[in-house]
């Protein structure tokens, strides 16, 4: 019997699987937060989740809408100030994985959350960098999760808010005290990893029922596929059940029906 699931569910579950029990994960809001909490509620019960609002080792029962919902604080080991979070915990080198979303991503995994168009005359003004620019450099490695589309996956981002490997793939070379950068990108279509030499993102695994053509169609550059292309295992019954229950609780909570 094969389970029914959406591509969004496939993305969250795949992203969750990337997180192991012993990680200290600095979690971005939205998709990363959904995946990180799903990991915690399934195979990684002891994973340490940290949000930039200052909540250390938090275990929310519902997904936070904002980075600083009360739920995050009340279920945390302790809550520190925002400067302490960025100075001691992130820049201090205690984060194993920074988990980010983005509005645009390019072939060298640079992220743009600043704007579309020109900085002084933007076509679309986006929220901005937030914590991402330093999460991406201070965390030991970075995972990115984002929906796959030609609008999102562009050859060159309009603005490098947050460095992946730079416009030439070499931005981290010979920089002291910098993390390994984006080692994993999880979309609703596939998994991508940087080529060890060029750092260009390469598809390493296709999700079930996704074709190479689907990925090519949704990517704004001439995307490469790994020689040994894998197929991502489909969601299990448990993964789907936990994710759906989490999203249901969350929806009820944020609609004021808690």
């Amino acid at each position, binding site marked *: 019997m094969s389970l029914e699931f959406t591509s969004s569910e496939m993305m969250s579950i795949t992203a969750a699987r990337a997180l192991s029990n012993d990680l200290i994960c600095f979690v971005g809001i939205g998709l990363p937060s959904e995946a990180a909490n799903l990991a915690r509620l399934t195979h990684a019960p002891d994973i340490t989740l940290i949000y930039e609002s200052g909540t250390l080792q938090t275990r929310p029962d519902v997904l936070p809408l*904002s980075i600083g919902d009360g739920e*995050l604080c009340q279920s945390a080991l302790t809550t520190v100030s925002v400067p302490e979070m960025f100075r001691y915990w992130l820049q201090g080198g205690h984060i194993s994985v920074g988990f980010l979303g983005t509005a645009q991503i390019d072939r060298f995994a640079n992220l743009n959350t600043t704007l579309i168009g020109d900085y002084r005359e933007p076509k679309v003004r986006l929220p901005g960098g937030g914590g991402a620019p330093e999460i991406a450099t201070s965390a030991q490695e970075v995972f990115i999760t984002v929906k796959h589309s030609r609008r999102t996956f562009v050859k060159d981002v309009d603005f490098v808010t947050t*460095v992946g490997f730079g416009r030439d793939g070499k931005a981290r070379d010979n920089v002291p005290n910098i993390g390994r950068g984006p080692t994993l990108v999880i979309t609703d279509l596939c998994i991508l990893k940087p080529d060890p030499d060029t750092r260009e993102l390469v598809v390493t695994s296709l999700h079930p029922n996704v074709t190479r053509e689907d990925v090519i169609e949704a990517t704004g550059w001439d995307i490469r596929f790994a020689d040994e292309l894998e197929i991502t295992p489909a969601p299990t019954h448990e993964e789907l059940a936990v994710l759906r229950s989490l999203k249901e609780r969350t929806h009820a909570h944020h609609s004021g029906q808690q």
Partner: protein
Amino acid sequence: MAEFLSLKEAVSKYIHDGDTVAMEGFTHLIPVAAGHEVIRQEKRDLTLIRMTPDLVYDQMIGAGCAKKLIFSWGGNPGVGSLHRLRDAVEKSWPNKLEILEHSHAAMANAYEAGAAGLPLAVLRGYVGSDLPKVNPQIRFIECPFTGERLAAIPSIRPDVAVIHAQRADRQGNVLIEGIIGIQKEAVLAAKRSIVTVEEIVDDLGASVNACVLPSWVVSAIAEVPGGARPSYTLGYYDRDNAFYKDWDAIARDRDTFLAWLKHNVIEKGAAS
């Protein structure tokens, strides 16, 4: 020593046209009521500082209070854009809004340095980012011991900081609990400060290392129950997440926004 004033008096006395104003609160304890009072008093030409502009700055910008915004993440958390902020940046409505943009780490460090009385903050930041190309305040220095290149930014020292907190005691000492964000730094870095509180009590009930601002670093305290809504106050009321979602539709259209502002801010305040 902190003065106990009404919110109206506090805003009138301590916030002036042209001031640099930091209203802080990282999702939690956002001083929304104070922002509405600023709108009612028609303050103009403010330089607004805030890590996460949020709805209260969207409203103040839409109401025409701001000429400049210094920020690091300007969105409606978990929902999307701040449409009034975008309209001001993209279309100069209701007036042109200059922006100066940082990362969270940089702004947190800049507030911290301001609280520490220093002219600059030094951090390992902005590596590979285009932000230094568009923000002339971001420079780089070399560590005299290791030669490492580090980012340097000016500290933040606002004219006025405005925050919301759980409570003050009758001597004017203020307790902040939960997600304490950057509020202590904002107040210590500022020349003047206004604190709205849920209640004024005999005893703060603070634990031994609690985040407490002594009366002598606060200019004015105003008792404003619910002063953070639709943000929240830990121990008092929850975040009104539904309103944050509703705000998207209200703010998307100029007329809808103006009607909301008139009904919910301008007329509401006048009645009290």
